[in-house]
């Protein structure tokens, strides 16, 4: 399938259209809302489902050298992406060292919702992927934060100031590594791994059949959130920062694509690794940044990751990453 066909198929999928509906509702200031508790339940369901299915896949296929290499590559990516992002932000925008470091931490970490949406695109194309990519997603949450904090310290020293760090690194990393989404995702992955196909046969009507419908409802909510972020982005983002939210995921994706050339991943697996690298966190990392770099402007990194990069990845990015995966792993 060509890149254009992939993009059209993705843009006309119910998931993306529900997301667009949510964004539209937010932009026209509709009173459409998904209650907070419902949105949290939907997110938990998606983590449970995707984690469990990944675990069952690993139970079937077993552990191999590619899994170890992919996890190692994902750690390197998560460390390296903030360094590149920080350098570009400092060169192209007027952001302070601390703001640039905080933004780059978001881009080195991952968006699990983008990942979930990408798994659905991969599946809809009849492709399979390695179940352990769920573990890769969890592993990629934290290294970027270490990288960004080191960049903030170094940058602030160069600017003649110092970072006003409120948190010790170990406490912060423990908090991110054990945040609710990661515990649910990894916990469900382990349960799926232990219970295998027998477990899947028992709960498939819950974890498989309603998945797409629930993803639609969740993406409607994410559309509302992203639409509000988009409204905010015009107020806080300068054109160079706004452009960063679009071009930087492509740079991260290209870097991950180069790694895929060295890994023996399937096309579906490569598409997901590229998507993970290209996605930007907007749940775990913003909270961590409020603790670690409280002087960084939260409106800046939230608007960029949620209002710009997330919609871009969901609509145009994912098909592009699948196309890149077909090129590097096909």
């Amino acid at each position: 399938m060509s890149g254009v066909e992939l993009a059209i198929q993705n843009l006309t999928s119910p998931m993306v259209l529900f997301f667009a509906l949510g964004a539209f509702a937010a932009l026209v200031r509709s009173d459409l809302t998904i209650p907070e508790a419902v949105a949290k339940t939907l997110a938990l369901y998606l983590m449970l489902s995707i984690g469990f299915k990944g675990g069952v896949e690993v139970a079937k296929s077993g552990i191999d050298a590619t899994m170890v290499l992919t996890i190692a590559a994902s750690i390197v990516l998560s460390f390296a992406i903030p360094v590149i992002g920080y350098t570009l932000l400092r060169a192209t925008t007027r952001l302070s060292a601390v703001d640039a470091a905080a933004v780059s931490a978001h881009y080195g970490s991952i968006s699990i919702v983008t990942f979930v949406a990408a798994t659905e695109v991969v599946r809809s194309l009849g492709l399979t992927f390695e179940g352990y990519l769920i573990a890769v997603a969890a592993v990629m949450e934290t290294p970027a934060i270490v990288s960004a904090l080191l960049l903030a310290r170094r940058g602030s020293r160069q600017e003649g100031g110092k970072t006003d760090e409120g948190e010790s690194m170990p406490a912060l990393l423990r908090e991110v590594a054990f945040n609710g989404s990661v515990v649910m995702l990894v916990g469900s992955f382990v349960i799926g791994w232990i219970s295998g196909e027998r477990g899947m046969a028992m709960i498939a009507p819950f974890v498989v059949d309603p998945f797409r419908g629930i993803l639609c409802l969740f993406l409607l909510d994410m559309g509302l959130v992203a639409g509000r972020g988009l409204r905010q982005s015009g107020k806080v983002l300068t054109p160079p920062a706004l452009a960063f939210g679009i071009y930087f995921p492509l740079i991260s994706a290209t870097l991950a694509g180069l790694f895929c050339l060295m890994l023996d991943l399937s096309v579906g697996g490569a598409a997901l690794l590229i998507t993970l690298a290209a996605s930007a966190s907007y749940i775990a990392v913003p909270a961590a940044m409020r603790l670690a770099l409280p002087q960084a402007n939260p409106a800046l990194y939230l608007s960029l990751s949620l209002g710009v990069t997330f919609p871009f990845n969901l609509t145009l990015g994912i098909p592009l990453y699948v196309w890149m995966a077909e090129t590097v792993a096909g």
Partner: protein
Amino acid sequence: MQMHSKKRIEIIVEAPVLNRLTDLLDRLDATGYTVVPVLGGRGRGGSWSREGLATEAGRMVMVIVVTGEERLDAILTPVFGLVTRQIGIVTVSDVMVMRPEHF
């Protein structure tokens, strides 16, 4: 009815800091506190609302502590040390309570 004078400390702070703040209050032997979610507001950075946020980072909470004047500084100084870096407001006001032994 006889009422007794106490001090009410109101701390509005970012949600990610909440656990650290309540841990600190526990260590300081504050006799009690109440945590209240904050729905929205407007400050130097403009308006904000709890609605439609995907992360704890944009949410605010309010922690209310009622204590005797003699303990005010012992609580306020470390609390200020914790929240001074964050977005938020700390206020102290005079209140009357019915059961002074609770505070």
